[in-house]
Structures are given as structure tokens and as C-alpha cells.
């Protein structure tokens, strides 16, 4: 399946769940509603034609307006690859854990919770592991985070 075929396949089969986005510059990119995440993940993994069983990467982005959580997934057998993202508001951000589908999400979700402050439901092991145990200075990967010793690049006129 080529990238365009994959796009068409998903567009025809999962039209109600995944909306194609045109921001993806290489691999197809879709948007998924936060409450349908678990459903989508399971469908993508169990689909006979896709078998997207390999979670390459998952991370959150702070775009200053809202959080985007991007899942990059691939398949070992069918060699396909696609990304999908969830856009959610800044306040009280919360997602479902996809550990049941891709156990690899465990640490990625933990890191997201730690560095962005996005709560993960049903995670089961939300413990600090990157920052110091006694950290109380907020979530450093957010754009508005600041600290006295945080050096930004000098602005040259």
C-alpha cells in the first residue's frame, strides 16, 4: 500500500473517526477526537490490512493555544506508517492511556504527564522519572515555562 492508497483506505473506512489533515508533509496525518482515541487505536492495530502494531513515537506539543498529542505508528508486517493527533484545550488536558493497545506508550505517557502536565487516565504508574523527586517548578516543556537560570538565545537586532 502506498501512502496515497493508505490515505484513501482510511478515508473510506474510518471516515467517522479520523479526519485527514494536510499538515503532514511526508506521511499521512489525521486528527482524532480525544474521546475516540482508544477506539481508533484498537481499530488501527487490529485491522487486517493495516496491522499498525508498532508505536514509533508519541509526544505532546504546546502550540500556545492548545496541546497537540501526536502518535506516530507503524507496522512491522505491512510496513505502513501514519501519524494521528489529538488537539485538546490548554486547561485540564487529559487523555486516555493507550497502553493496552501499545504497551510502549507507558513511558511516553509518563514523560508527557511529567513535562507537560497532561493527565493520563488509566495509566497506573504516573510517577516522576525525568525530573527530580522534589520538583515544584511546573512543567518545563510548556512554552510559558520560565526559570531564573533558563537562558534564551540573545536577540540580535
Amino acid at each position: 500500500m502506498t501512502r496515497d492508497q493508505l490515505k484513501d483506505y482510511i478515508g473510506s473506512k474510518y471516515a467517522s473517526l479520523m479526519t485527514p489533515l494536510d499538515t503532514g508533509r511526508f506521511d499521512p496525518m489525521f486528527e482524532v477526537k480525544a474521546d475516540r482515541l482508544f477506539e481508533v487505536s484498537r481499530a488501527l492495530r487490529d485491522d487486517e490490512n493495516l496491522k499498525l502494531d508498532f508505536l514509533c513515537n508519541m509526544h505532546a506539543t504546546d502550540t500556545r493555544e492548545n496541546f497537540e498529542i501526536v502518535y506516530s505508528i507503524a507496522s512491522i508486517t505491512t510496513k505502513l506508517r501514519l501519524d494521528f493527533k489529538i488537539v485538546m484545550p490548554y486547561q485540564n488536558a487529559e487523555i486516555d492511556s493507550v497502553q493496552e493497545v501499545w504497551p510502549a506508550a507507558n513511558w511516553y505517557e509518563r514523560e508527557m504527564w511529567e513535562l507537560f502536565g497532561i493527565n493520563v487516565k488509566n495509566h497506573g504508574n504516573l510517577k516522576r522519572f525525568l525530573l527530580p523527586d522534589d520538583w515544584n517548578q511546573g512543567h518545563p516543556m510548556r512554552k510559558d515555562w520560565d526559570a531564573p537560570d533558563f537562558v534564551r538565545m540573545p536577540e540580535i537586532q
Partner: protein
Amino acid sequence: MSAVRTEEFMVNMGPHHPSTHGVCRLLLTMDGEKVIKIEPYIGYLHRSIEKICENRTYHQCIPILDRFEYVTAMSCNYVFSLAAEKLAQIEVPERAEYLRVIMLELNRIASHLIFFGTTAMDLGALTPFLYALREREYIMDLFEMTCGQRLTYNYIRIGGVSRDIPAEFVPKCREAIKIIDQKVDEYMALLNGNPIWQKRTIGVGYLSPELAVAYGVSGPILRASGVDFDIRRDDPYSIYDRFDFEIPVRPNGDVFDRYMLRLDEIKQSVRIISQALDGLPEGEIKAKVPLKFKPPAGEVYSRIENSRGEMGVYILSDGTEKPVRVKTRGGSYNHLQVLPEFATDILIADLVAIFASFDIIMPEVDR
């Protein structure tokens, strides 16, 4: 004897333990010599590369990302350049692609040589480490001759490579890969048949293919578990589809297979390099990329096959000079994650062997 009471105890393995390769901390629950539970704690080498990159231009990100995985810094250079090129749809000149492949494969050999040395050292044999570093020196010399640095190259740039290779590079490179090819046989003679080595590695630390795929394990470890997957072949990037090479796969998923697979990969990399040297065309080494590089808004996740599995970079661009978000993905992150899942009820010596065979390096985990 019923009066004898035993209890489990916790041992802190790391962050400054000789065999955790840097600053990984494993909290072990042990029953005598037996490890019952492993809890990894990371973050001792956290340099917030992702946050730094948000504050840099695309060109400035490359030297920062050199430090993301310093054992194979060429891959870090490359994967970021690849993502940026995908974003801006840049066509890379032919010669640059060949040079990139040569450098990437040389770096893979260097990394696997380090793996060989440190694994042997963790299992108690100290001499192979020095032998492996001796051969790695040839590759480091080639890199220094080409780009001026031995570890943090900053060589592969957006749109090509920073400098053309010097005239004496090709003969020296041919000589180096020939020596390395011979020395790998010597390594195998030194350790493979050794009954102690076999006892320590064969059958130790079996990782099932299902668990490996579920936890995102990639690269040599995945292939040693019998899963035939290599991004160089299955999601081709650069010009890897032009070369004739094999992807070694081994079925047993134990420490010995992971070790042997990497030595086999060195041989395959040697094949790729010699083909690339033969086919090296003349021409441009860099596409025209402006200093104020502003890719159009969009996002891309690019991934390559590194010596430690899948290495990926995600870039979100809003059309300005600086990326909005750079997310790096290293293989070791997932490899460390899967460790507590299958390495239970083993002896502490086996844990050291498994950890060594995973070839985890901490900058990739902590970033």
C-alpha cells in the same frame, strides 16, 4: 530450619555503577543473588535537548542534536536533516547522498565496535574492549579527516553535507574497512567458541518477538528476536535501495544472538560502504539552502535505522526560522522500558549481561 527468616532487599544499581553505561539507575528488588523486580529511573543525563531546539534555528539544531546520541552522532545529524528536507521538499544531490550513506555506515560500525567491547567488558573480559577501540580509531580518523571532529560531527546538514571528502579519504576508507572486516573474524575466534562466553550468553535473557514489538523494541534487538524488520529496507530512506546487502536475522532472542547479530551487521555495513565507494559520483555536495532556512508550516516525523534501533525526529514548523517543537525518539528509550517486563527472576550477573546486550546509552534515553 524454620527459624531462619529471609527477606528481600533493595539494591540501587546506579546511577554510578560500572555496568550501567552512564547514569542509569536501576532499583533492584533482590532475593539473595536473584533479581525479582527492576525499576529503572532515568533523567540523570537530561539536558532538555528538545527545549533547547525550540529556541534555535534549524541550522543551529544540528550541533545540538549531535549530543542527542553521541555514539552515532552522524545518525542524529542525518535524521534531523532528513526531517527538515521532507518539510521543505529539498532535493539532495547524488554525491551528498552517497557520502551520507558512507558516513552513516561507518558510524554504525563504530557504534557496534563499542557495543562489542563494552559487552565483553561487562561479562568480565577486559581485553576485547581495547581491541574494539583500536579498530574504531580508524573510523574516528576518517571522520576527523573529513569533518574535523571525532565525536560530534555536525557533518550532515540540511540539503547535503558540510564538506566534501579529502582526496585521501577513499583509499584510507577502503583500507580501514578491510582491516575491520578481518578483525571481526578475530573477535569471533576470541569469544564465540569460549565455553565461558557461551555459558554466559546462550539462552540468557530471552526476549519474545511479541513482547519486543509491543514495547517498540527496534533495531538489532528486534532482529535478534526473529522479527525481520529493518527501516533501511522496509521504509527506505536515502539511497539504501540501491545497495545489495542482507539484513541479518537470528531466531533465539538471547544475549548471544544480539551479540552475533551486531557482528554480522558490521560485515554487512562493510559491504554497503565498499559498494558506495565504488559508485561514488562526482558533483555537488549540497543543495542550495538559505542561511535563513524557513520551511513551510507543517509537521513531519522521519525515522532511520540507527545502530540502536529506530531513531526518529518529529518537527513541527510554523513557517518561521525556529521549529515549534522538536521531538527526538531514540531506540534505547524503549529498550530500557522493556527491561523490567522480561528480565525478572534472573541473577544479577545475567542482568548485567542483558543490559550490556541491549546496548543502552543514556543520552538517548534522557535527551
